[in-house]
């Protein structure tokens, strides 16, 4: 039985000591009598029983799992950016099955209502004819897509899924903060949070009798399959791309459901059919899980002044060849469009009274509402049909900026129909986990509903958002998240395993079927960038070791400067003493994001490419790269580099890159994905090798040849091999043999060309002859194979124009051309369209004469 807080002396007591929810708000933990609700007791007892160390371990594992998933609002943001970081509170919101049931019914009713309204607005428009809805609510709404109305074959249904932002009232009922009707975002975040927390909690989670969310996702997967017009269907997630704050969520969901993750430019329409642009040509698309706003989906058929979208997409939808989830145009009921009308609409269309209350909202197309918003304090205005997702930009109220009430009246009379005025809703509290104590935090959530032939299904969970304030307009933004657990009823069986089995089969069959042209390009560049990073790190290691072992920068300044110059080129520091130049060069290559071949620039490239190609990278490979990018030591340290050379950091970096190479070698199927990654790596390594051999086998003023060649062997990772073959101080001929000609050395130039040629030979091609890029690489390889090291190095002593230097000059040009040809041959489908709309405007003429 429940005990009052003050009387508790057990393990829970310490946790809840000092827990005081603010007056007038509902609290999830404590009932009106100040006692802990029964729903929370079993969990809290277990949570208390594991002790402070146990909780610390849970927190650590959860945080680690979250970090490995790469979860964020904006995947390209600086990991230190607090606004972009995803913070998950350890304590979930816990709801009993009967509490959940009320919300569930309300959500299903709301989804049914939205479906009915959409069907009418894009069909017979009886709601407009009969005056239930005013025309300005619809036609004055930029999310209403005229081009999607009145089709002879309207979509079978508009909603495939739906999300609703809700907050709990003091009486335990629920109110709607906003509808997400167009392209609901966030159930990928929800899933990643659940995965991390359930792994972190372990037994604690398993014993708590939590309803699983996997069944919901399996149902989504099955429903997408079922919606396809044909059996062997291809389903893609259409994402706005990695720049969108919701990208992580979309990508995580796509990966979990086993769907290709595409952007608008990856799709093309031919003859009323959508296709995916893959390495092996165009592949038919049957179902699109749409995560981009409908308004910008098709620049040809939906008038817009924005770039982007897929020309012809509307055509494919209209002809019914592609199923869109959700249907184009669903955004017309986004956010608060329904707020002022939902009660009447539920009566009119469903014959039911509305189950979920509306958070206070005035539709400003109405003249009485316009007056109210000017007379009464406390109303905040924002765009009626806007999309407010976690991590997206803030709302903007236009009214305060206007000079006076006359100007506000004019604005509202003219444009009011596109705006809503809202008042904050009180937010309930729930326990947050703070320094091993429970403390009340305010919360609201986004709930998810999906639709299939059998009906409407609510996800048993939610994307809980914490709020720094006690009241809110819309879903609170940017203040941390929580999981939500709905407890099973006594005797309730966990989600059926049938779904899991079916799901796994589908997942297996689809893996690796299509490689997008854009993904191939990202992999190629990922290969180049990891190799570029490794090359500069190996050079940096050679420099830093010499600083430490050989007594500082004054011992071999010429060598150290020459090494840094290989990567800095024109950007190398020229001013000050050698010592200052070396320090400045190190700073540039280690910490500065600007230099083209510096560590930071390559790491940013790696991050970007890996994000784009994430769907085809192994989980371990992704984790390694993620950890590398998250390592803060690469940020400017502010300490003197010469005083404390950061050799450990560079060693760790090299170790991580080698680990990534290992996961690529061991964990990637030998398909085209792997080939493009490896082609990028081989090509870049060949170019880097050419630079380093060229620089260190030439005559360096003031540097002993043996010293230079030792550095070369070290950077080329072939010192041990050399020592095992020749027990002498490095000499030019054997070094060149080992690093340029020896096809058995995976660090040699010949080996890179041999491997690259092999990849090129196995790519899909037209015609019986070798491709131009393959011929270039083959010519260079053959030249090396016919050369002999003595001759190459002997020539060098006679001065300029030596065989080796000449070869390197040609090889640089040919390899860069080969890279270009690979781009044109395989990534050209990835090219983005240009609009010719701007080509021609109508100028007209005046009539002359009578």
């Amino acid at each position, binding site marked *: 039985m429940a005990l009052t807080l003050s009387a508790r002396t057990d393990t829970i007591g310490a946790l809840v000591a000092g827990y005081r929810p603010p007056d007038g708000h509902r609290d999830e933990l404590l009932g009106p009598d100040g006692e802990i609700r029964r729903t929370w007791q079993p969990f809290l007892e277990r949570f208390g029983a594991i002790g402070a160390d146990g909780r610390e371990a849970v927190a650590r594992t959860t945080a680690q799992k979250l970090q490995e998933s790469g979860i964020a609002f904006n995947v390209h943001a600086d990991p230190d950016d607090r606004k972009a970081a995803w913070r998950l509170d350890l304590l979930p919101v816990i709801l009993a099955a009967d509490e959940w049931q009320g919300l569930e019914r309300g959500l299903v009713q709301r989804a049914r209502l939205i479906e009915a309204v959409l069907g009418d607005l894009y069909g017979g*428009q009886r709601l*407009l*004819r009969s*005056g239930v809805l*005013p*025309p*300005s609510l619809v*036609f*004055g709404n930029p999310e209403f897509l*005229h*081009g*999607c*109305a*009145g089709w002879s074959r309207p979509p079978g249904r508009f909603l495939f899924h739906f999300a609703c932002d809700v907050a709990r009232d003091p009486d335990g009922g629920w109110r709607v903060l906003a509808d997400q009707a167009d392209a609901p975002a966030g159930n990928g975040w929800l899933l990643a949070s659940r995965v991390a927390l359930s792994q972190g909690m372990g037994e604690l989670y398993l014993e708590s009798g939590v309803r699983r969310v996997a069944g919901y996702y399996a149902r989504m997967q099955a429903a997408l399959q079922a919606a396809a017009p044909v059996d062997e269907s291809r389903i893609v997630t259409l994402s706005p791309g990695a720049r969108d704050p919701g990208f992580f969520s979309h990508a995580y969901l796509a990966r979990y459901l086993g769907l290709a993750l595409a952007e608008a430019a990856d799709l*093309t*329409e*031919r*003859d*009323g059919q959508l296709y995916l642009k893959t390495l092996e040509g165009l592949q038919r698309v049957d179902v699109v899980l749409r995560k981009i706003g409908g308004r910008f989906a098709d*620049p*040809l*058929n939906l*008038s*817009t*002044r924005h770039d982007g979208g897929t*020309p*012809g997409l509307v*055509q494919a939808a209209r002809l019914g060849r592609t199923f869109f989830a959700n249907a184009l145009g669903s955004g017309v009921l986004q956010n608060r469009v329904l707020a002022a009308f939902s009660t009447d609409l539920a009566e009119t269309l469903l014959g039911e009274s509305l189950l979920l209350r509306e958070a206070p909202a005035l539709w400003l*197309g*109405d003249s009485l509402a316009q007056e109210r918003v000017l007379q009464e304090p406390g109303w905040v205005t924002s765009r009626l049909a806007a999309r407010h997702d976690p991590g997206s930009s803030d709302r903007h109220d236009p009214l305060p900026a206007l000079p006076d009430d006359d*100007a506000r009246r*004019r*604005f509202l*009379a*003219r*444009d009011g*129909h596109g705006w809503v005025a809202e008042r904050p809703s009180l937010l309930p509290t729930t326990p947050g986990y703070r320094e091993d104590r429970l403390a009340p935090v305010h919360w609201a959530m986004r709930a998810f509903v999906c639709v299939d032939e059998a009906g409407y299904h609510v996800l048993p969970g939610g994307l809980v958002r914490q709020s720094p304030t006690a009241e809110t307009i819309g879903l609170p933004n940017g203040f941390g998240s929580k999981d939500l657990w709905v407890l099973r009823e006594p005797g309730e069986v966990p989600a059926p395993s049938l779904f899991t089995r079916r799901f796994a089969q589908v997942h297996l069959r689809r893996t690796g079927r299509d490689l997008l042209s854009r993904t191939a390009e990202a992999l190629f560049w990922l290969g180049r960038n990891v190799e570029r990073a490794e090359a500069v790190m190996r050079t940096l290691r050679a420099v830093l070791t010499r600083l430490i072992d050989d007594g500082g920068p004054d011992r071999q300044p010429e060598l150290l400067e020459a090494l840094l110059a290989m990567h800095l080129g024109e950007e190398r520091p020229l001013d000050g003493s050698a010592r200052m130049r070396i320090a400045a060069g190190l700073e540039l290559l280690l910490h500065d994001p600007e230099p083209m071949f510096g560590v930071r620039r390559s790491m940013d490239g790696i991050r970007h490419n890996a994000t784009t190609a994430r769907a085809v990278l192994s989980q371990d490979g992704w984790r390694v790269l993620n950890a590398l990018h998250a390592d803060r030591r690469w940020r400017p340290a502010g300490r003197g580099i010469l005083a404390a050379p950061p050799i450990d950091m560079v060693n760790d970096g090299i170790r991580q890159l080698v680990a990534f190479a290992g996961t690529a070698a061991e964990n990637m199927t030998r398909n085209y994905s792997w080939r493009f990654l490896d082609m990028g790596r081989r090509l870049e390594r060949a170019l880097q090798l050419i630079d380093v051999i060229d620089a260190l086998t030439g005559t360096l003023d003031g540097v002993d040849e043996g010293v230079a060649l030792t550095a070369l062997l070290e950077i080329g990772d072939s010192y041990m091999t050399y020592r095992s073959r020749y027990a002498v101080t490095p000499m030019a001929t054997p070094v060149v043999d080992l690093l340029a000609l020896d096809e058995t050395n995976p660090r040699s130039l010949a080996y890179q060309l041999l491997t690259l040629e092999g990849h090129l030979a196995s790519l899909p091609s037209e015609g019986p002859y070798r491709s131009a890029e393959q011929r270039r690489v083959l010519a260079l390889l053959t030249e090396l194979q016919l050369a002999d090291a003595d001759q190459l190095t002997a020539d060098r002593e006679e001065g300029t124009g030596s065989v080796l230097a000449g070869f390197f000059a040609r090889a640089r040009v040919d390899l860069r051309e080969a890279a270009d040809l690979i781009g044109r041959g395989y990534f*050209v489908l990835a*090219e983005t*369209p*240009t*609009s*010719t*709309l*701007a*080509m*021609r*405007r*109508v*100028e*007209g*003429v*005046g*009539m*002359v*004469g*009578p």
Partner: protein
Amino acid sequence: MIFDVRHRTDYSYSQLVSISHHLLHLEPRDTPHQRLERFELSIEPSPGFDDRDLDAFGNPTRTITLDQNHDELIIEARSRVRLAERELPSPLETPAWEEAAAVRLAATDDDALEASRYAFASPFVDLDDAIEAYARQSFVVGRPILDAAIELNSRIFREFTFDAKATSLATPVAEVFETRRGVCQDFSHLMLGCLRSLGLPARYQSGYIMTHPPAGQERLIGADASHAWVALWVPHYGWVELDPTNDCLPMREHVTLAWGRDYGDVSPICGIVYGGGAHDLTVAVDVLPLAAA
């Protein structure tokens, strides 16, 4: 009147285009005063996909895809249309303009509902205080709608200068208003902005206008042009067309192609090309009167 219209557009690209999609609004629609008697469309090279349909505003469209490499595209439309006389309501007897603005909140019948689609800002027509104030000089309280609109039409003609160099397709209406310069498309968008800022339903009309050569000179082949003007919804009557570029109410010399909320809905040729580099474009339009109806 019967007109033969020839509208030829030549694109040439500096690099090969691998694929292009075009949406054409080149077939004149039927209107209460206009009937299409003949229409031919030729496209070189021949498109792989060619679909005729009606768009959201009832205009005939062609959607074409060229999926073979090409560095040139020639689209030529030839139409024969017959124009009937139209009777306009007497401006002073039209209802007060406020009645038309009321359709934004409630559509009393299907015509009003259809009209209400055109009463709001659209991608090329932004509304603001300055434009509204300009409109209100003509639209004083209770004034008959057509009377006020004809005055606004004349004011735009008088106070704005036709200047093809002053603006581009990207010039917003607010800038046209400020500089008092532009072309027929700008003036049409501006007038739509004026009317809609008051809540009035007003359409963008795309089409052609017959030009008259200066006295004593021959008609030049290809010298006519695409044209744009507006149509205003007058309660109990219907749509009345106004041409602010020419300070007239189109009667016999305007051939309608299509209408929509603005240029973006009905541009004669809207295209998306992949590749192509730089391009050249030439357009030739001839509007030849055949005979009196």
